[in-house]
């Protein structure tokens, strides 16, 4: 009976979403505060019933209830409990339910953390979130019911979770990513609420900024987790493929990054208001677009869910209503936004705008590259592919410009900056960065790559600028330390996030140019030398796991005759799905990863293997950089200002 309760509970959630979408917004329209005040209660009810539905689905997975279709298709009694748990969202229906759970979760978070908002704004925000919840809950109920049953005779066992997904990465990656996607719905709702109520004073940006930052931080971590997961789980050591699904997560991130900067200008200088509203709409729209691309089957991807054109059309209609509706609202009302204030070309505003232009252009280039194959195909021109070579080129070119500007832009004052007093610093820092970036990698590796030279020049230049930034902040303080303490969390958030970008760029530049990859034919007992490491394949053993059997290699790595690491690459065979998986053996530290994977056996006794060995310098810096960026995003919202303005907002 439980699955039916789950479905019933979801229907109730849908009803409450409907009420939330209608009543408070009617209240705003008719200026009736009593109607507006229903919003928080309705939001809580909607969240509660969604949570119950989700809990029941989790229960079905944990209890091996194979009468539920998606349990029987995506789980198995031999699966460890934590994979049964994560299998809940390892499929289209369950992941959609998780998506909605998070959306309703963010909705109640607004009621909790934004108690001091004006009743009108709050109910408008919640109402907009209600509309979105209503649409997506309807989508789940009508096209992707997670509680559909296989009755009267349920199968005795399930057909197992895709082995790719049996991994800690899958337990963490989708929920984090969805938190980011869905989190942008709050900034979106604030923007729409501002358009509806016509109140564009500085307070609405101040209120929505922390939400944008948190969502962006989640998205950053989610993308980094996905990249890390692909790196060690797909078995080939790649960390970014420009796959349509990756692009779908990257585009909202780019727009979200632009939004964070634009909102900063809007809050501090009361400029770019209409632009911030538009970016908030776009950030969430790109999140929704990702959902559509992954689930409609219009694009091929290694990550895509089993697709169904009917679902695609349904999502498309929801998207069209949400996105086009908000853009119509924007076209009608954004003209009323008044902007005052001026700035010169050399000013922080102007550089923030350049940052926005570049990020938005990158996002649209990625979007167009992702969609062009679809467009060419739909209009019968031809089948073509747009992949890594195109994206790398465009992305790298624009990022070079963006990071060069960052070094200058973060030092600038608002309104207007005289550069004269900086000339000395610029000459020293830029020349120094260029020279060090040429000499240091060359001296250490003996190799010259112009890409490394360029990339590391940018890294050193931005690092120098970050240090200079500290000096500027502490210039007028009694001592360096008190200056640092006084700088404020907003400053530190920015500083750490930019440092994260520097760290991540270092990782990308170095691993892309200095990585080594070779395929060897190795029998047990043989060893090869590569990059001063000696890899010795000690043995290949047959072992068995809970739901798979495996050839497990043991590779001892020596350096200068001393053992430094032991790698255990595996070739796993999952019995239920009859799937072969390559599990890499990795030993990593900050300087390098040693990466081994078994490609295929070359003899019948499975003792001689083709082994792929890789040395990946500085690869972890990318993910650490991403974590720093996320940390910066979260740190900056602890600023007292957000709490204080909330209080003054209430007293207005």
């Amino acid at each position: 009976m439980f699955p039916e309760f789950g479905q019933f509970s979801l229907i109730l959630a849908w009803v409450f979403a409907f009420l939330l979408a209608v009543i408070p917004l009617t209240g705003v329209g008719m200026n009736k505060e009593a109607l507006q005040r229903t919003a928080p209660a309705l939001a809580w009810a909607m969240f509660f019933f969604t949570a119950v539905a989700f809990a029941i689905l989790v229960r079905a997975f944990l209890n091996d209830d194979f009468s539920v279709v998606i349990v029987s298709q995506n789980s198995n009694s031999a699966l460890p409990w934590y994979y049964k748990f994560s299998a809940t969202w390892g499929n289209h229906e369950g992941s959609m339910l998780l998506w909605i759970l998070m959306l309703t979760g963010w909705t109640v978070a607004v009621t909790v953390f934004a108690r001091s908002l004006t009743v009108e704004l709050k109910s408008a925000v919640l109402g907009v979130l209600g509309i979105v919840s209503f649409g997506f809950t309807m989508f789940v109920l009508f096209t992707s019911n997670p509680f559909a049953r296989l009755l009267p005779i349920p199968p005795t066992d399930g057909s197992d979770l895709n082995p790719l997904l049996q991994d800690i990465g899958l337990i963490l990656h989708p929920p984090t990513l969805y938190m980011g996607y869905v989190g942008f719905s709050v900034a979106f709702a604030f923007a729409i609420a501002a358009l509806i109520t016509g109140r564009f004073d500085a307070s609405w940006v101040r209120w929505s900024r922390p939400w944008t930052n948190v969502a962006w931080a989640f998205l950053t971590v989610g993308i980094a987790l996905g990249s890390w997961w692909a790196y060690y789980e797909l078995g080939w050591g790649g960390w970014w493929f420009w796959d349509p699904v990756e692009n779908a997560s990257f585009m909202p991130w780019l727009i979200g990054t632009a939004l964070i900067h634009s909102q900063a200008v809007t809050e501090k200088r009361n400029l770019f208001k209409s632009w911030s509203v538009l970016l908030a709409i776009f950030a969430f729209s790109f999140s929704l677009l990702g959902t559509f691309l992954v689930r409609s089957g219009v694009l091929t991807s290694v990550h895509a869910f089993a697709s169904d054109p009917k679902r695609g059309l349904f999502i498309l209609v929801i998207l069209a209503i949400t996105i086009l509706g908000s853009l119509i609202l924007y076209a009608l009302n954004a003209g009323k936004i008044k902007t005052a204030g001026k700035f010169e070309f050399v000013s922080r505003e102007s550089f923030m705008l350049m940052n926005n232009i570049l990020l938005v252009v990158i996002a649209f280039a990625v979007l167009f590259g992702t969609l062009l194959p679809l467009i060419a195909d739909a209009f019968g021109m031809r089948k073509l592919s747009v992949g890594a070579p195109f994206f790398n080129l465009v992305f790298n070119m624009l990022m070079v410009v963006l990071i060069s500007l960052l070094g200058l832009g973060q030092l600038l004052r608002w309104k207007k900056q005289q550069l004269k007093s900086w000339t000395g610093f610029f000459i020293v820092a830029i020349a120094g960065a260029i020279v060090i970036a040429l000499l240091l990698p060359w001296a250490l590796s003996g190799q010259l790559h112009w890409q490394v030279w360029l990339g590391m020049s940018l890294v050193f230049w931005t690092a120098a600028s970050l240090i200079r930034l500290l000096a500027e902040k502490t210039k007028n303080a009694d001592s360096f330390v008190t200056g640092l303490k006084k700088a404020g969390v907003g400053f530190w958030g920015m500083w750490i996030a930019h440092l994260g970008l520097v760290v991540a760029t270092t990782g990308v530049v170095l691993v892309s140019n200095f990585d080594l990859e070779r395929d060897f034919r190795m029998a047990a007992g043989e060893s090869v030398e590569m990059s001063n490491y000696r890899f010795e394949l000690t043995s290949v053993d047959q072992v068995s796991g809970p739901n798979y059997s495996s050839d497990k290699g043991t590779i001892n790595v020596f350096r200068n005759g001393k053992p430094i690491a032991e790698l255990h690459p595996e070739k796993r065979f999952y019995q239920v799905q009859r799937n072969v998986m390559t599990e890499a053996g990795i030993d990593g530290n900050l300087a390098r990863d040693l990466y081994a994977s078994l490609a295929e056996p070359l003899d019948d006794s499975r003792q001689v293997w083709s082994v792929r060995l890789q040395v990946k310098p500085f690869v972890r810096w990318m993910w650490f950089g991403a974590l720093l960026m996320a940390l910066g995003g979260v740190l900056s919202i602890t600023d007292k200002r957000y709490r204080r303005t909330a209080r003054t907002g209430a007293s207005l």
Partner: protein
Amino acid sequence: MKWYNQLVRCLMFAATCALAVQATANEVLTFDSDELRDRYTELTFQLRCPKCQNQNVADSNAPISEDIRLKTYEMLHQGYTDQEIIDFMIDRYTEFVTYKPQMSLVTIWLWVLPITCLVIGMLILFRLTKRNKQNENPALTEEESARLKALLEEKS
């Protein structure tokens, strides 16, 4: 001093990066030169497995990817240029087989659109900052004061 040790290890590692592979006797594929190896890596990264979901032939285990890799390897050693190899694959597997879009009336938009957006964006930026500079001048021209008046009326 942990971070310091890490740093030293980073540097020491980087120092040894250069000394590439020494024992190549066991390698699955041997190349006449490092240049050929780099081109092989590049090409197999650029060619798409025609049968897989979305993978390049370097990372794919499909038999067809193996064939394409082998053919690439052979053609490289026969002295074909990269573009000739790509064209050879396109003749057999259509443009779908290359992740690097070949220039045509359809794919040119991949470059034209972003550049157009960038140019428009920069124009807007220049206009904004120029307008602001003018505004800084407190003395308004006649036309401007008329416009200001009109705007104020419109507002009220």
